[in-house]
């Protein structure tokens, strides 16, 4: 075995030892007073109301999906904008590429719009 690995193993042992010791000490020294409140989920200090797994309108899902889609596509604009001026000297290729990209994006937007994905009721 190469010698370089010994410090890493030593570190691993120390970490495991320290974590184990802390757990052991809490177990031995800490007071235990179980209660209902401690087991309830934390909701910013409020009394929990009901189950989190309820039915909610599927429109939330649709809106979230559209948001993620267009958000990700927006991210592509930033690097393009940064290098735009520099690469324009090599021809209009970079401009045409982005026009095609936006055109495809726009088709998706029109589709979502006309299909009623942006309508709330």
């Amino acid at each position, binding site marked *: 075995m190469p010698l370089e690995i010994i410090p890493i193993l030593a570190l691993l042992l120390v970490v495991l030892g320290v974590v184990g010791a802390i757990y052991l000490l809490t177990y031995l020294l800490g007071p235990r007073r179980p209660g209902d409140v401690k087991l309830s989920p934390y909701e910013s200090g409020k009394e929990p109301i009901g189950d989190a797994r309820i039915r909610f309108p599927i429109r939330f899902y649709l809106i979230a999906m559209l948001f993620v889609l267009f958000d990700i596509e927006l991210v592509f604009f930033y690097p393009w904008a940064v290098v735009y001026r520099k*690469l324009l000297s*090599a021809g209009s290729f970079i401009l045409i590429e982005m026009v095609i990209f936006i055109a495809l994006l726009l088709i998706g937007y029109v589709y979502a719009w006309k299909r009623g994905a942006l309508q709330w009721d």
Partner: protein
Amino acid sequence: MTFTQPTIDLTAVSPLLALLATAIFLLLLPLFFRSAGRALLAFVAVIGLLISGVCLFRIPVVPISGFDRLLLLDPLAIAVHGALLLAALLTLLISLNRVEDEYLNYGEYFSLLLFSLIGMMIVTSTWNLLVLFLGLELFSIALYTLAGIRKMRADSVEASLKYLLLGAFASGFLLYGMALLYGASGTLQLNEMMLGIEADASTLALIYAGVILLFIGLAFKAALVPFHMWTPDVYEGSATPVSAFMSTATKAAAFIVLIRLLAHSELAIRFPWPQLLIVLAVLTMTVGNLLAIHQKNVKRMLAYSSISHAGYLLVGLTAASSSGDQAVLFYLFVYTAMNIGAFGVLSHMGVSNADERVDFESYRGMGYRSPFAALCLAVFMFSLSGLPPFSGFIGKLYLFSAAVEKGYVALVVIAVLNSVASVYYYMRLVVNLYMRDPAEELSLPRANAGLKAALFIALLLTVLWGIYPSLLTDLLAGISRPLP
């Protein structure tokens, strides 16, 4: 850093562009003209497919590569694009016959079909791993949606979910394999993977692990045996035209990528590919056929039969020669015609009973009630089981003789035995068509013109390629190893 503009070769992508424009048009058309009916949309889609076919025909025979070698159109790619276009055309035509639930949006349905076609065409015409993954995901995601297109039916949604979960799992394997290959070689071009790296043991181990993972991902798409579990459930739950498309076009795409993967002998040095392929071929054929024998539902029978046909294709792949590749392509064409034809008759039968549980019994006496459909079904069954003079026989002959040329006699013997066993379950259907009296009144609605056209084309091709195989083999003669 200097920026060089990639070479843009519009000839190479013209079939894809035609399909893309049609797909987008189909998506938007029903939104702006609510009166646009099924027939008009199908007409637009067929026109798009034909334009794409013409563009494909105009691509020169010599391999061309566009977009800085991201896209490669060699004879192999062009040939399989032809098969894929044929599959899409027949699927479109048989889709017209279905009396679907009112929620089906035909614009979306057709454009999803075209998008998956585009994905398959991208997958089959590249050496680049990233483009490969892009195309694979494009057609897979479209197919996951297509499997669940009848969204008010529980079995359709179940099929879609099963396909999505298992398909995503397989894509994970594929991506992991690609990552290992890239890490080991530093290039994404599959055909340059072994150039410029010294072949020490640890790099080779990485490359082999990567190739195996890639193989597993593709084997899932092609429904080879240890990875076939999803096939019957998904085919049964999807709309019948969608199952027809999945069983033929997906298989074609996956097998072409397998050829590309295995054709690079540098990737395969000291790796026992032939042994692995022989084991998989025997398993796939035998398991597919044995399970098909027990099926009561005709659609499930065709699903298992499609697994066994993947096994026959593997026999051709094992040969690893120009003639083997040509035989695989020939069989993909033939299989596309006869299998989509068979599914077309099935979808027509499904029209008469709502839950589509079409078992062998319900075909009793069909030969006297709707003679043309029954005749077509009988011919497709004869062809699928590999009886002369139909094209299924010639296809198997080419596949098996390519394997014999390379000395895999035992494998071919097993394949022939399997083929004989398969006659039993195909003939069971034909016996029901002609030799049994109908148990109850069989009332089939009249077949739609689209279905009739599709059945006619499929019948014509199945018979014609069986009698004059040179019509097809001449087109495939350009395919040769080593691939460019």
